[in-house]
């Protein structure tokens, strides 16, 4: 009791004592050695009712006898002050928690005549404590209390389950399986600045698995301003991390894919704002993606038709050969394919691939050019080859004439002269033939009956065949559909083949040869076939038959027949092939796939 209070007048001190006794927010009772309540304050009576004439155990606990471990009894014995937790019942019979303070009251003789019991209700606090405990233990995150040594003073069930029963160890040992403090320790930061901090950490659980944590630390003040502990609460975000990692990977994969795609990729939202513009697109349109992404420039890069398609919200489209302009206004031929993008039913934009056709077109051009040059070279070589034979004849003629004149042989001179005449004639024929071959004629494609053309050719050669002793037969293909062809050209081809076949028969030792002209159709391919049982050809000749001016007919041929035939066949999109066995005969076959035949009325594909 301090001096200022003692110095007050006695009546003032008494007044203060009474006021305190009555109005202090505690329950106060004075009990004598018989445990009877002598006096009590207002609070006491409010809680326990009027105790007049009752024993304390009746009042506090509704008992009939003294409590087994009565604190007051001990204080009567030794005069010591005691504090204890008690559980009692209030006057409504509800259990109540109290902190009880027991102090001795001495009489004039210095004996403890009575004790003063001051109690206050902590029922509320107790239940709060319980609630907090449940919260601490059961909250679905890791909670621990860490002291300034970074030792875990208390940890909740989830920490124990996940990281092991390690109270008293350093937090870095428990959470991260480390032997040293972490450089970015959130608890130390809170100890330093006294503030709540949020950070992300990677822990290692008791099974050695990585755990991604979001950590919140807060100062935990137990007394006064100084705080001695930090409470750390963390949430496991490993799954979210995994998901985000996967998303990141997926995103990266798509980015690499789009960036390295050969074709330009441009995607826009439903308002035409560009949101994808890959590297190929940058190169194609000669601009940076940063200059176009996020801007409503879709119509500058995507064909008008596709922009309309997005607006209408229907499906996808392919434009095999269209034109777009780059940012410098240069026109680019592209192959375009685009798809409208949906989120469920709703159109959210469109994506288009643009393949730059310029290299392809250039290549195509170069190919045509080189084929043309090769054809020119080949023609020159073939021409030279044809002339060689005639030149030999002319050289020979001159030599024989000279030889005859030298020897005075009229007969020999005449033979030489004949040779000269004959070869001059040959070269004349050849030049005529070559001119007509290179000049060609105006094609006239119309649907013709393949049977009819073949039959015409058979009729044309019937007499000649009879004279040569060759049997000429014709096999039609009943009901064959008409095919768009140049009638005259087809006639020329078949006539050439039949004429060759009859020559082959004549060259054969076999006196009973036949030639068969057959028309057929297999799998939409029109076939003309000329088969002979004549002399046949061996390998070297077979390889040469389609070359200009190649002839085995000596003086009789110009070597142009099969070459003209081949040219016509190719102009009709077909192919010519030969199968031959020396001594047994040959089969020449012309095959025309219907889908490659020329369109009636259109110019034939010219193979110049």
């Amino acid at each position, binding site marked *: 009791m301090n001096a200022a209070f003692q110095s007050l007048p006695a009546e003032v001190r008494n007044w203060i004592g009474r006021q305190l006794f009555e109005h202090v927010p505690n329950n106060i009772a004075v009990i004598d050695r018989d445990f009877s309540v002598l006096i009590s304050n207002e609070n006491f009576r409010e809680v326990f009712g009027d105790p007049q004439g009752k024993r304390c155990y009746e009042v506090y606990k509704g008992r009939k006898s003294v409590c087994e471990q009565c604190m007051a009894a001990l204080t009567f014995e030794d005069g010591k002050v005691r504090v204890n937790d008690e559980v009692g019942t209030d006057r409504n019979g509800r259990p109540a928690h109290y902190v009880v303070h027991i102090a001795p009251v001495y009489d004039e003789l210095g004996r403890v005549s009575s004790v003063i019991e001051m109690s206050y209700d902590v029922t509320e606090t107790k239940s709060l404590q319980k609630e907090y405990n449940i919260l601490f233990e059961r909250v679905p995150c890791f909670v621990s209390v860490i002291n300034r040594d970074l030792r875990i003073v208390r940890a909740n069930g989830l920490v124990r389950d996940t990281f092991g029963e390690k109270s008293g160890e350093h937090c870095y040992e428990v959470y991260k399986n480390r032997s040293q403090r972490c450089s970015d320790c959130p608890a130390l930061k809170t100890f330093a600045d006294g503030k709540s901090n949020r950070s992300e950490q990677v822990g290692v659980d008791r099974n050695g698995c990585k755990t991604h944590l979001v950590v919140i630390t807060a100062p935990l003040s137990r007394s006064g301003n100084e705080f001695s502990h930090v409470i750390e609460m963390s949430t496991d975000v490993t799954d979210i991390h995994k998901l985000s990692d996967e998303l990141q990977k997926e995103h990266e994969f798509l980015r690499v894919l789009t960036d390295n795609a050969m074709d330009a990729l441009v995607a826009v939202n439903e308002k035409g704002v560009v949101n994808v513009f890959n590297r190929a697109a940058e190169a194609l349109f000669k601009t940076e993606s940063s200059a176009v992404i996020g801007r409503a420039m879709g119509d500058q890069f995507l064909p008008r038709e596709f922009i309309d398609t997005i607006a209408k919200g229907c499906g996808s489209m392919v434009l095999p050969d269209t034109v777009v302009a780059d940012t410098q206004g240069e026109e680019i031929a592209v192959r375009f394919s685009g798809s409208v993008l949906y989120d469920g039913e709703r159109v959210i934009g469109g994506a288009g691939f643009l393949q730059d056709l310029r290299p392809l077109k250039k290549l195509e051009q170069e190919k045509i050019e080189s084929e043309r040059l090769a054809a020119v070279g080949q023609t020159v*070589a073939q021409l030279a080859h044809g002339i060689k*034979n005639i030149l030999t004849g002319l050289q020979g003629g001159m*030599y024989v004439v000279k*030889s005859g004149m030298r020897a005075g042989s009229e007969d020999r001179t005449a033979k030489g002269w004949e040779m000269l005449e004959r070869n001059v004639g040959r070269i004349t024929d050849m030049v005529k033939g070559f001119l007509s071959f290179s000049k060609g004629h105006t094609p006239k494609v119309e649907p013709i009956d393949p049977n009819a053309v073949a039959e015409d050719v058979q009729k044309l050669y019937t007499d000649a065949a009879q004279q040569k002793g060759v049997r000429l037969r014709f096999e039609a293909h009943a009901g064959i559909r008409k095919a768009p062809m140049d009638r005259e050209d087809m006639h020329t081809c078949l006539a050439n083949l039949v004429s060759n076949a009859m020559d082959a028969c004549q060259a054969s030792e076999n006196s009973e040869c036949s030639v068969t002209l057959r028309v057929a159709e297999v799998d939409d391919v029109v076939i003309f076939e000329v088969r002979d049982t004549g002399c046949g050809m061996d390998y070297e000749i077979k390889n040469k038959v389609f070359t200009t001016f190649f002839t085995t007919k000596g003086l009789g041929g110009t070597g142009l027949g099969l070459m003209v035939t081949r040219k016509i066949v190719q102009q009709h999109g077909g192919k010519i092939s030969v199968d031959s066995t*020396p001594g047994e005969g040959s089969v020449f076959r012309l095959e025309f796939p219907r889908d490659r035949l020329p369109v009636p009325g259109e110019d034939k594909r010219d193979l110049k």
Partner: protein
Amino acid sequence: MERKKKVIIIVDDEPDVTLFLQTALEDNGYTALTAANAAEGLSLIRRERPALVCLDILMPEESGISLFQKIKSDPEIRDVAVIFDSGLSLARDFERLDYRHLPDGTTLPEPDGFIEKPIEAERFLALVEKVLAR
């Protein structure tokens, strides 16, 4: 006393060529025989055992290549010298033909000469002389 003339056989389907070469050879002291196709040529070679055969390559029915293979595969006549005369170009066509490797694995010797048409008499006779001098 007159030395026995060397026999040379010309196989060519073009009568102009055979007449030309025959005249040139006979004017220069050889005996020249002609055949218009390979089969005829082969029997003539077997009968006459010539010193040299001039062979056209492209002939109907059977080519000069085929005849060459028969000559070089026949022990009786394989030593007969052969020169090809052809409208084929030596570099462009002839050397690309894989004619010396037979299906049974044997490889035939090279022909003794090759003369490309058009034939000039002097060049032809010089080649014949060179081959026969071996």
